[in-house]
């Protein structure tokens, strides 16, 4: 077992799970989408991206690309949130839907990242 591998896998899966937790629920309902969960997902996604820096293999490049996509999607969602209002409760349903749908895009990228992680692991016969 390799501690570095554990940390790497941990952050990638955590990024996906937090992202899923935020997106899960009715798309326009403020009760289902909490700002703290969004914040946590954002921070963990950035950490996951930084962890992927510097791997020059083909798989490493795709890993980095998916994470960059996720971070960009979440950044767009954060921007919409910041410009629209302060807390989740006083957002209109349409604004919240666009925030959640942007995050859902990030979720898709995170899922791809997790899939790559699993495929890469199963390919190694050790």
């Amino acid at each position, binding site marked *: 077992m390799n501690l570095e591998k554990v940390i790497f896998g941990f952050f990638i899966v955590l990024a996906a799970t937090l992202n899923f937790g935020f997106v899960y629920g009715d798309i326009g309902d403020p009760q289902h989408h909490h700002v703290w969960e969004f*914040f946590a997902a954002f*921070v963990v996604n950035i950490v996951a991206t*930084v*962890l992927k*820096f*510097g*791997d020059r293999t083909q798989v490493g490049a795709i890993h980095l690309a998916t994470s960059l996509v996720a971070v960009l999607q979440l950044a767009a969602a954060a921007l919409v949130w*910041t410009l629209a209002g*302060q*807390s989740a409760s006083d957002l209109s349903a349409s604004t919240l839907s666009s925030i959640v749908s942007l995050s859902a895009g990030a979720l898709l990228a995170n899922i791809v990242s997790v899939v790559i992680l699993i495929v890469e692991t199963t390919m190694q016969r050790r």
Partner: protein
Amino acid sequence: MSSVVLIALRRLRAPLIVLVAVFALGMVGLVLIPGTDSHGREWHLTLFQALYFMAYTASTIGFGELPREFGQAQRVWVTIVIFLSVVGWAYLVASLLGVLQDKALRGALVAGRFRRRVRALREPFYIICGFGETGLLVGRALDWLGSRFVVVELDELRTQELELLDLAQDAPAFAADARTPENLLAAGLGKRECRGVLALTNDDHANLAVAMSVRLLNPNVPVLCRAMSAETAANMASFGTDHIVNPFAKFGEYLALAIASPGAYRLTSWLTGLPGTRLRAEAAPPRGHWIVCGYGRFGREVVQAFRGQGVDVAIIDPNGAEVSGLRVVRGRGTEAEPLLAAGVDLASGIVAGTDDDINNLSIAVTARGLNARLFTIVRQNLQANRALFQAYGADVTMVSSEIIAHECLARLQTPALGSFLQLIPGKGDAWCDGLLERLSGALGDQTPEIWSVTVSASGAPALHRALTQEKSGVVLGDLLRDSSARERRNACLPLMLTRGGGSLAMPADDVPLRAGDEILFAGAAGARRNQWPILRNINVRDYVVAGIDLPGGLISMLAARKRRAP
């Protein structure tokens, strides 16, 4: 370049994560900890406000407490966060500096910059492999002549020295092994602008490898090689190296020429001299009895040259190996006995040709002490000892690097000069002396610039047009006029006219030119630039050839033509 960024990012992973963690922690605390406004109500920062505050506090810009004054609890937290973030930034900056000082990364950066600079070269250039004494001389001369060059040199210190030279150009230099084909390609071997490769390293095998790479990777590019041993030279010749310079063999040739025809030797060495050197009154080596000290690669060539001219030679060599038909004395020649045994008191000249500079000087000094009328030829191995050799003042000082540099320049600049130089020995001494007098009278005693003009649509369009379309006659003398005042002479002389395979040395001024002629000129500094418009500009050509001073523009030209027509 992208690999450099990737390497740097990988090294910065840890500090970046620390910084992200500090930001996240600080933001969480700032949002959770409440403040109280003037009405006593609690308020919280939003996540974005917290990020904004962290951004300007952590980078120590410090706008103050926004959007309103903080409470005590918030201030306690901010104090902690400031220390944490300063540590985070310091860690990042320290890591960044460490990455920048990393040798591997700096190497990658330097290589990347070199590649970019070579790729951006849009003028013709030469690749010099090996920037030792010879490379330095050639590089300086190329710079003087306005040619660009790129350097590949094994020793990093030498590439750095290149930057300290006072050159007119900023020559790209790369500390790498020229034997590796990839490095030659990085130096622009595959580029269209590459005019030639000079393999001048002090390692014969490396030069061989360069010649081979050039032959296989870009066969159109001429390659000039330095070869210290005859075997390497033969090997290079076997796969079509354009020119192989063996300084010892070349010196032997010069020596033979100097004995056979002093005038021809003087003319040759002046025409092929490095730019900026002056014509010297060189004494010719006398015939008679000669002593050669050191029978190595250099000594062999010298002895062969002497014997070819029927000169009597004795050898002094530490090994003392038998040479058929010659007197061989065992010894070094730095003491009197071996010199006397070789017959120094009756000799007319001595060659101090060992591979040790101090021994060579010692031989020359001792020999002159025994016989003051000796003609001395001294071999100088290292440029660093130049001052010693200048102070001694031998009749001829043989410097390998200078001989190689002469040869390279003569070949690179004008291939036509080579065929002119081959004509010289057959012309006789008087002819050479006369030519030398004429040239130095017209051009001064500095080594002239040599160039060739081909009367073709690309080489001299204005002239070519006059001869083919306008059917007007131009004589060679017209090209020697000053292009701004036609009654004055430009400081240049034609050396040779090549027409349809035959060539005429020192053509007269009234020779009519024909399309396809190639003329070799020698001129003082600036003469070539003065001649240039006659070849390329129709108005200047008309003025110089016929004395017609036409106005330039199209309309005034038409008007002038009309006026002249009826």
